């Protein structure tokens, strides 16, 4: 168990060093002794980790005070003050990075790359100055968190990242992200410690940490406010006293958190009381979960395999062979694909596949624009359907969630490029059994290729839960043996690699009459494959040209 510290800003206000409208981070330069003393107070209270006074020391936030050019000066001064305070102790220093105060486009008007650059600058300086861990905290929008994590990974690849979201009373961030979606995304992006801080008191924040522990084995952090603030005599007052906060410490431990601290309204006295409670707390043995394979949008999470119901992928956002749609996309008219997306979601799609294979356009730029539009329109996670590294890079950089790359085959150079992008952006990857000689006819041949891809992916740093496999459904019109071999491939994937599977279901009936019935029967073979398990266990299915089948299948 590790004890963090508590608030800096509210303590500076109480001590008279900070008036309304002042820039809190300038205190590092104007009142260094006061900052050092507050750090020392927390260390004396028992804090194992203290946070630098750099919460708003990014270029964008500091510009509100006319101090955008002081990032380096402020961050270095803050680190200097913290280092003086921890000198001679075992206390570690968290380089603190808070929100920019701006929303990223299209939710706001600030460019993703500007936010990335602001965090990159701050993280570089804090890392160079000696931060042990970089802390990204009080974030209310997933996109800002993503920009910050990507910046920290680039600026300081060897320093652990602690990430904390700020949630509202409804259990979501203000922009709608749940603790589960946040945890899955943060872990896939490479965070070392995840959790929540600010906005809520311990009673409301503790259950949210528990929910994170249900989907991740990463160490958890909790830093609640000292209750919900009230305005009394013109001052913001937090109601929980030191002993009140201490009473919640056992519950914080029982939520699975191993890093415990305070946020707004907490003081060294609060942390001293919490330290005593922590020393008395009964240790909690956190259960180890099987990490789920899951995809997320800004506001939702979709689990795949692992006992969850089958997932339906809508694949109609694909201009291949559709001249009118190609023309719309060439002219940047997105209304038809937005309507298509809404209709597929209405018909029951859990995920939407996006293919922008339009001739005579910059496909990477087109994909970026379409992903921006659709990620604001539907809460359904998106799948990026491309093997072009340039297209994938553009799409994954700005998608506010964890997506699935569709797809990779057993070609070494393709695997290398795609796995690297997936790792960087925390995406899952759909693996296809296609080798130099095309698609093997036998299940054994397909399994061999998938094993090769799986092994290469793990060597690149991807995890088991990042990988899905497609047995490849070929039309029954080409060979009467094809459906049987596909189902056998599905079985071997499940038995051998135990990873979620994806089938392009309606391919089975291509070129044949009565497609709906054939699709439905093949679907029931696929989902009912495992007598020892629920029918819901096994597969994810994709539908492209057969929305009629799509509707009938969902009623099964």
């Amino acid at each position, binding site marked *: 168990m590790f004890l963090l510290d508590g608030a800096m800003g509210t303590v500076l206000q109480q001590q008279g060093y900070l008036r309304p409208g002042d820039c809190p981070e300038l205190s590092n330069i104007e009142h260094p002794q006061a900052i050092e003393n507050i750090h020392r107070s927390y260390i004396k209270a028992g804090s194992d980790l203290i946070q630098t006074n750099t919460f708003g020391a990014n270029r964008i936030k500091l510009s509100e005070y006319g101090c955008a050019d002081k990032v380096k000066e402020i961050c270095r001064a803050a680190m200097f003050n913290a280092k003086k305070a921890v000198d001679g102790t075992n206390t570690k220093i968290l380089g603190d990075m808070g929100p920019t*105060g*701006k*929303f990223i486009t*299209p*939710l*706001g*008007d600030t460019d993703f790359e500007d936010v990335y650059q602001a965090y990159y600058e701050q993280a570089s300086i804090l890392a160079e100055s000696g931060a042990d861990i970089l802390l990204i905290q009080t974030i209310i929008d997933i996109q800002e968190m993503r920009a910050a994590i990507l910046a920290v990974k680039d600026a300081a690849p060897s320093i652990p990242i602690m990430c904390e979201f700020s949630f*509202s009373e409804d259990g979501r961030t*203000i922009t709608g992200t749940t603790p589960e979606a946040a945890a899955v995304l943060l872990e896939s992006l490479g965070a070392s410690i995840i959790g929540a801080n*600010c*906005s809520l008191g311990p009673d409301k924040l503790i259950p949210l940490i528990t929910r994170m522990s249900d989907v991740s084995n990463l160490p958890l952090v909790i830093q609640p406010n000292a209750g*919900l*603030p*009230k*305005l*009394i005599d*013109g001052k*913001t*007052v937090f109601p929980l006293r030191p002993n009140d906060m201490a009473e919640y410490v056992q519950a914080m431990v029982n939520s699975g958190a191993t890093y415990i601290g305070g946020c*707004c309204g907490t003081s060294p006295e609060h942390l001293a009381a919490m330290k005593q409670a922590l020393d008395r707390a009964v240790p909690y043995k956190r259960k180890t979960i099987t990490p789920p394979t899951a995809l997320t949008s*800004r506001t939702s999470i979709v689990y795949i395999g692992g006992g969850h119901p089958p997932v339906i992928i809508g694949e109609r956002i694909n201009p291949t062979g559709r001249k009118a749609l190609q023309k719309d996309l060439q002219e940047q008219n997105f*209304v038809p694909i*937005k*309507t298509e997306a*809404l*209709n597929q979601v*209405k018909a029951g799609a859990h995920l939407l596949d996006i293919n922008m294979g339009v001739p005579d356009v910059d496909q990477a730029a087109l994909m970026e624009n379409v992903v921006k539009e659709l990620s*604001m*329109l*539907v*809460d359904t996670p998106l799948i990026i359907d491309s093997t072009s590294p340039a297209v994938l890079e553009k799409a994954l950089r700005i998608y506010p969630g964890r997506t699935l790359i569709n797809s990779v085959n057993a070609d070494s150079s393709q695997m290398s490029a795609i796995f690297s992008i997936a790792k960087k952006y925390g995406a899952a990857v759909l693996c296809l059994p296609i080798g130099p000689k095309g698609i093997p006819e036998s299940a054994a041949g397909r399994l061999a290729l998938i094993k090769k891809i799986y092994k290469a992916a793990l060597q690149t740093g991807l995890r088991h839960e990042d990988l899905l496999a497609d047995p490849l459904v070929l039309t029954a019109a080409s060979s009467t043996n094809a459906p049987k071999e596909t189902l056998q491939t599905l079985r071997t994937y499940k038995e051998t690699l135990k990873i979620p599977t994806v089938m392009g279901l309606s391919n089975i009936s291509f070129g044949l009459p009565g497609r709906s019935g054939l699709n439905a029967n093949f679907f029931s073979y696929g989902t009912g494959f495992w007598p020892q398990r629920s029918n819901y266990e096994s597969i994810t299915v994709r539908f492209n040209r057969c929305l009629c089948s799509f509707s009938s299948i969902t009623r099964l």
Partner: protein
Amino acid sequence: MPIFNGFLQKIDIAETRRYAGLRAAENFSDKIVADACTTALAIAKPRGIFQQCGYDAESYQLLCEEPFTVEGSKIRKHLENAKIAIIMAVTIGSDIEKEINTLFSKKEYSRGLMLDAAATTATETIADQLNHYIDKMAAKQGYETTWRYSPGYGDWPLTQQLNLIKAIHADQIDIHITSGCMLVPQKSITAIIGMARSAAKNSIPSGCCNCSMHNICSSRKE
């Protein structure tokens, strides 16, 4: 000025029916209402902007870049306890108006009417999202907020749209105003929210039953 565009993922069908004046028209096709909502979702381009400024309840002055006096007894009463005011504006853009006009010009009156109602619901949805964000930000500082009040409510004259538009530089999100003080695009809203220690206590209660038009308004909520 801070920008929060919100995200429009759903348009309430019941509200759309209400805005279209169809609450009693039970035989009206549900499909046409649902289709209008889908069309509105696909065409709308939500945008929102807001600005915090001081408010002097004694002189009724909003202390923004170009301070002005708030006219109208109801809005003054509404902001009685406020020390701070948030001026906000949202729009869903002009493309949807063009589509509505196209439908009417093609004599597709039912579809035009329903799309207009869906667009109104969408605009209110975006205003609600920005309002929600403002409420949360105020609560973080220990403030309560009043419900949002727009020019045209009670006796607050529409002419003050101009003051609000200027105060928040609404042209940044392409909201403008006609000489008759109507907003362009039409599917736009300006409003003010008061922040106070106990904002709710003295402000005018929200809801249709507290409106002077309650008895004759066809859009009132039951």
